[in-house]
Every structure is written in C-alpha cells, then in structure tokens.
C-alpha cells in the first residue's frame, strides 16, 4: 500500500491506484473528461494535470499515472492552475458556443469545468472546426461539432457493451466519432453513451429540446422493464415523465440502464386507461366505479375468485389482491401468465443466488435456455466481464449473438442429462462454477436437472452459490414470495373455473381459457388484457405509485411515486380496498402504510431493502427430466411489456433496429 502526499496531506492508497484516485481519496477534486471509473484509461483529454514529485518538472496526467510510494502530489499550485486553463482553452478552440440551444446545457461537464477551471475571457479569432452530422439511430442524436474526442463512447461500446459499433476516423484535429458506415447503434445498451458523453455531442433523440434539467422533478424509482430491477431516476415535469436515467448501484445496474428501461417512459402517456369500462352487449362502455363494483358483487365471487398478476405490478398491489382473495375464501393466485409451471416450494431454487456482482467472478458458466442479452441486458454485461476474466461460457438453446466467446451446445434441453466432455472438464476444474436457468429452460423442465447439475459439480460451496434462475418479469420474485404460484400453474386456475378473475395488469395471459369468468382488468394501459376484459378499472403504472419490487436476485427495492395517474385512474391498492367494501368483506388495512405493515408482517423479507435470504437449495428430483427444443420467450426486445408497446420510441426502435424498416428519413 503506497503512501503518498496530496497537498501536504499524507494518505495511504490501495495498490494499483492512480494518482487521480489518490487525490480523490484525499478529498481533492480533479477535473476530467476522458477518465471514467468503469472504462479503461485513455489519457487523451489532459484535463487532469497535476504536479508530481519526483518526476519531470512539468504537469502530469494524473489519471494515467500510477501512485507510487513517496510521491508528492500538488493540485493547488500555480502551475496546475495555468495548465488547466491552458487545456480548457485548447478544448474550447473547436467547441461551438451553442450552449443556449444544446440539450446538455445545465448538466454539461464542459460547462461546469470551464466555469471552475477555465480562463475568464476568450482569445479566439480564428474560425472553429465543423464536423458533418452522423446518424446513430433512433435513440442517439449527434451534433458532432461539439465532440471533444474523449473517446468514452468508443470505449463503452468496445468494453462494456462488447460490440464494435462506435469508432473514430481521421486523426488529430480532424478526428471524427461515428458508427461504422453510419449504421444505427443497435445493441441494448446503446443509449448509455449519452450519459457518458461529457459534452452535448451525443444527446437523447426522443428527449431533444423537451426540457431543461433544472425544471424537472427527480424521483427515485425502480425499472420494471425486466427482472434486473435497475435503479432509475424518473425526471418529471407536471404529470408527464420526461425521461428515465440510471442511478448508480454497484450491486445491480452499476451505472447503466437498458434502452428499454430508459426510453419506454414515453409510453406512459399513450394508450392510458383513464375511465371505468363495463362490457355491455359485447361492447365496452364507460361507466361509474359503483356500477363496476356492483357488477362484480353480482357475479358471486365468494370462494370462487382468482387473481393473476402481470409482469409490472408491485408487491403491495399483489398483497392487497391476496388479502382480498383471502377474505373471500380463495387462494387462486398466479403470476406466471404464460403457463410456466416450475416447482416453487423452495424459493432458493428459483433465485439468482450468485448475485449480479458475484457472477462476474464465476469461471465456468452454463446458461440453460436464456437469451441473456434480451432477457436481462445488464446481466449480460456482467457475463461479459466474467468472460473477460477467463470464464468459460456454455449455452443450451438456439444461437444468439453473445458479446463474448461462448460455446453453444444445441437446442435440446436433454443435453443436461448427457453432458459433453467439454463441460464436465471445465466444471470439474472450476473454482466458482455457475449455472443460469432462463425462462426457455424452465419451460422445458430444466429446473430439477439443473439442480442435479449443481449437486454433481458442487456449485454451492464455501462462500459461493452458483445456482441461478434468471427471470424476465419485474414482479416475478415478489409474486413468488407472496405465493403467486400454484401447483399446475395457470392451467390449474383455468380448471377451477372461478366466477371472477382479477387481472392485475396481466396482458400476456390467454383469456380464452377463462371464457365463463367475469374478467376484471386492473391496469394502466389498453392492451390485450383490456380488450379481453369485461370490466376495466383504471390503475396506476410503476411511475404513479409507491411500491416494493424484488429483482431476480431476491433484492428487495422500493420505488417512489413520480407523477399522478391520469383521469379517473387510482393507485391499485385503493381499487382493491374499495372493492372489498363493495363485496362486504374486510381486508384489514385502510392506508398504504397499514397495507405495507400487513405485507411485512406476512412476508418479513419484503420489509428490508437488500437481498432476501431464501436458505438452502432443495435436493434435486432425479425423476424430472428436461426434454425438447428450447425456444426463447422474447421475440422482440423492444416490445416486451405494455408500456414499451405503447411507446412511440420503442416502436421505432423495433421497426428500425430489429425489422430494418427504412425509417431513417422519418426519424430525421
């Protein structure tokens, strides 16, 4: 552990730290443009100059200089001050003065740092360089004249996303950043370069000229577009969510967010359910709340009612529905809409036990039926890190474009019972072996064979649990903890023929199986569920209610309400509470706080933010055998939930990036 002196203050820094990190540890701020904690070091902006002794008598780029014992670092001398002013002046030689029309204004590193470290006045008389516009797809807007050549975007695509999409052409002052052949950037994390770009060269296309950062209300929320539970910040103005940005959480999403989580928010103001509807003579007509409740009461729900949870609902809503069903004497609860029926008797067996942070350290990984890039783009980032550290990765299932070297073992799930030698070799040598079972694998009965695999290769050992299930729905783990899983799955509920079916935003469900039930849809978007429903009660989306979500690791996280629901829509739990009154039963809570404490009393793990403890893995049932060709459940990455399907941005991404319709002109 080297000891260095920063501005006269002696500190000890970890091995391998750079001078810049040492200064940060000492509480000194070092201006920088190209350095980023999660990217490799480039050292090309020179903004981080400091004075270091011993060494040549000139300022040194601190981000690229390792801290060594006995260094004397100064960040407050005249030399450093003039050096920073000089670098800033060089950067501004070619940077346009268009802050008033730039979307980065107010959250721009260049603005802030020129205020703090730049000269007070300009000395320029020459013309500025101009760069031709580039096309980077429907999400990223480019104004390349503003680029300061920090290459963060290039490094992100290469290192984190793992696709060589963005690069630099020409050199020196003429250097230009572009996507290759000006194709649209099309991977699932492409929009993160917008956050990374320290200036306004890469900005958000759907959000262009919409708002200024200082007029937005910021709310901490949780992303529901997949089961990763990325931490996000919703920026809203009035009752409209303008944008979603990632929050930093090293355990979950690090600093990234998938494009879907980021850009589906414009769907929150389209196709909204804002009135009560009742089906009369085969047609849905607007109605009053009382009428709707009376119609439900008339259908005789006592003892014959079922609830199906959709993919986006929070735990409180699910618990409120469970309490209502309990009061009516029924326990027909299910969340796995597509008919999956895996064994949920022990939640440890359906959890991502390695944790996202842990899976980075795995050295042999078997993926069974999961197209991780689409099902959990941020987990794929972790897998790529593991691969870069030398992990061997095997996939059972149809080929997909991994961003790391992986061996595909064919589509047949039965391969789990007849492992190729490559796997047995890799896993018997591995120190931290892991298996990941995805939705495609669960559908083919791969859960118990995977548990058997875990026993065979000793996946659970001191300080390591390598057994993982990767879900796709934000509500899944929470639903399983609250008992939204039947033996026999959704088919079992259909067989019970309930008088009333309460659908909590379930849009993936096959409503044909419930032809005789009164279908009550409580949700926020008009989609398949609303079309099939007999009664529609307008509810709140994830941005419009407080709620608890559990991600696929079993991590309990709270989201806050950013805006109000439109029209007559109510927060879901209040609808269920009012319904209880109309049906003359008591659910035992009158406020959100009471609901939450009742839920926590029933499932204590939901009361504590962080990883829930599900205990030991169960023993494998060797009689269950996996068989059949695996297929992946997601057909279109940008269209997986109701919000995304309603979003104009996601529709454009889907048609342009996946179906390659030529929308370039329309998007300009």
């Amino acid at each position, binding site marked *: 552990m080297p000891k260095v002196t920063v501005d006269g203050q002696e500190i000890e820094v970890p091995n391998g730290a750079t001078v810049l990190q040492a200064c940060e540890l000492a509480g000194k701020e070092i201006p920088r443009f190209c350095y980023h904690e999660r990217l490799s070091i480039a050292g090309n902006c020179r903004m981080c100059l400091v004075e270091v002794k011993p060494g040549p008598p000139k300022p040194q780029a601190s981000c690229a200089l390792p801290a060594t014992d006995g260094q004397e670092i100064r960040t407050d001398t005249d030399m450093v001050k003039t050096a920073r002013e000089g670098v800033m002046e060089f950067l501004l030689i070619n940077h346009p003065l268009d802050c008033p029309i730039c979307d980065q204004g107010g959250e721009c590193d260049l603005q802030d740092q020129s205020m703090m470290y730049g000269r007070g006045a300009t000395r320029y008389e020459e013309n500025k360089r101009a760069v031709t516009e580039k096309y980077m797809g429907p999400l990223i807007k480019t104004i390349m004249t503003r680029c300061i050549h920090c290459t963060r975007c290039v490094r992100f695509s290469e290192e984190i996303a793992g696709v060589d999409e963005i690069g630099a052409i020409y050199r020196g002052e003429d250097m230009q950043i572009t996507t290759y052949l000006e194709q649209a950037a099309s991977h699932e994390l492409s929009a993160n370069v917008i956050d990374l770009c320290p200036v306004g060269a890469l900005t958000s296309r759907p959000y262009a000229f919409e708002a200024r950062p200082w007029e937005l209300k910021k709310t901490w929320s949780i992303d529901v577009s997949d089961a990763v539970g990325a931490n996000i910040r919703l920026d809203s103005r*009035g*009752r*409209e969510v303008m944008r979603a940005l990632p929050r930093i959480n090293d355990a979950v999403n690090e600093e990234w967010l998938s494009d879907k989580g980021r850009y589906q928010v414009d769907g*929150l*103001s*389209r*196709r*909204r*359910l*804002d*009135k009560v*509807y009742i089906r009369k003579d085969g*047609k*849905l007509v607007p109605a009053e709340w009382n009428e709707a409740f009376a119609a439900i009461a008339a259908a005789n729900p006592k003892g014959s009612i079922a609830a199906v949870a959709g993919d986006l609902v929070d735990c409180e809503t699910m618990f409120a529905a469970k309490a209502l069903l309990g009061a009516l004497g029924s326990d027909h609860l299910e969340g796995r809409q597509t008919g999956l029926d895996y064994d949920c008797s022990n939640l440890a067996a359906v959890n991502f036990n390695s944790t996202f942070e842990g899976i980075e350290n795995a050295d042999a990984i078997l993926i069974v039926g999961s197209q991780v890039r689409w099902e959990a783009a941020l987990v794929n980032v972790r897998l790529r890190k593991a691969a870069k550290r030398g992990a061997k990765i095997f996939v059972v299932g149809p080929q997909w474009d991994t961003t790391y070297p992986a061996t595909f073992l064919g589509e047949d799930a039965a391969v789990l019972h007849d492992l190729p030698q490559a796997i047995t070799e890799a896993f018997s040598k591995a120190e931290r072996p892991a298996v990941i079972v995805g939705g495609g694998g669960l559908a083919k009965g791969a859960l118990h064979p995977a548990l058997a695999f875990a026993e065979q290769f000793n996946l659970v050992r001191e300080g390591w649990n390598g057994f993982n299930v990767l879900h796709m729905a934000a509500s899944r783990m929470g639903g399983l903890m609250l008992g939204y899983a039947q033996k026999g799955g959704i088919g079992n509920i259909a067989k019970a023929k309930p008088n009333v079916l309460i659908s909590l935003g379930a849009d993936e469900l096959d409503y044909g199986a419930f032809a005789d039930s009164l279908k009550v849809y409580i949700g926020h*978007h*008009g989609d398949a569920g*609303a*079309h099939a429903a007999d009664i529609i009660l307008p509810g709140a989306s994830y941005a419009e209610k407080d709620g608890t979500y559990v991600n696929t690791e079993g991590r309990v996280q709270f989201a806050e309400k950013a805006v109000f629901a*439109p*029209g007559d829509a109510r927060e879901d739990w209040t609808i269920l509470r009012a319904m209880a009154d109309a049906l003359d039963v008591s659910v035992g809570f009158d406020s959100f706080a009471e609901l939450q404490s009742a839920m926590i009393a029933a499932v204590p793990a939901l009361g504590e933010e962080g990883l829930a403890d599900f205990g030991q893995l169960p023993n494998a049932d060797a009689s269950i055998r996996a068989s059949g060709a695996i297929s992946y459940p997601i057909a279109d990455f940008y269209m997986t939930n109701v919000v995304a399907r309603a979003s104009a941005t996601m529709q454009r991404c889907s048609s342009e990036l996946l179906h390659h319709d030529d929308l370039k002109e329309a998007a300009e």
Partner: protein
Amino acid sequence: MSFLGKIFTWWNGATIGTSLFTMRRGEKVGTDAQGNTYYRSRNKRDMTTAGSYIGAERRWVIYEGANDASRVPPEWHGWLHGSFDDVPESYLPPAKIWETEYVPNATGTADAYRPQGALERGGKRVKAVGDYEAWTPE
C-alpha cells in the same frame, strides 16, 4: 346635461370649469367615432401660457361619457400628443374593410376578459386531458 347632473357626475364629460374654459378659449377641430370632441386653443396667446411651454398649440379632448383616457383612438391620440400637425381625417388613408373598430381598455370593468375557469365565469374549466392519450375500446 343638466347643470346639477354636471356637478354630481363629474366623471362623465367635462367639468364646469373645463366647459367654461372651452367655451371661452377653445376651437373645436373634430369628433371621433365614439363622439369624443377635440379642441385646440383659439388664441395664439395661449401658446405661451401654462401647458404649452414649448410653444406648441394646446390641444384637449372632452369625452362623450366616461372620462377614460383609453377611449381615445390611436389616430386622435397622435394628434392630441402633438405627433401630427393636422387632424387625422386630413392625411390618414380611408379605413380598410379589415380594420376593426377601436375598443377601449376594458380592464377593471364588467367587460374585462376572464380566462376559462375564472370565478366570474362560473369557476368551471374543461378537464385537462391534453397531456396523455386515452385508450378507447375501438
């Protein structure tokens, strides 16, 4: 208007003093569409008296009805303030058909503009639905 009426409704038209002054010194130059009458001093001597220290002619208006300065239309406003030498009819082009009638400022009167939702208009406004697109079954 009766003599007593003049005394007690001083806010309409000229006061007695102004009427006397106008009779003695004023020369009528014209009336506008609303019936307000415009005067200037008959005597050149008045040019040097109070109110015309720059040597300009003294000009004034006697309102037909309420003494509200915003009732003077723009063309006569210009004349009153000495921007034009002569009365408007003599040099302004005839009014175009698309020109609207001049309306005095209604602020503070019963005719004042009330936005939708103002209490004076019943306090009702239409629902704000413009910021989202609602779903309909069709």
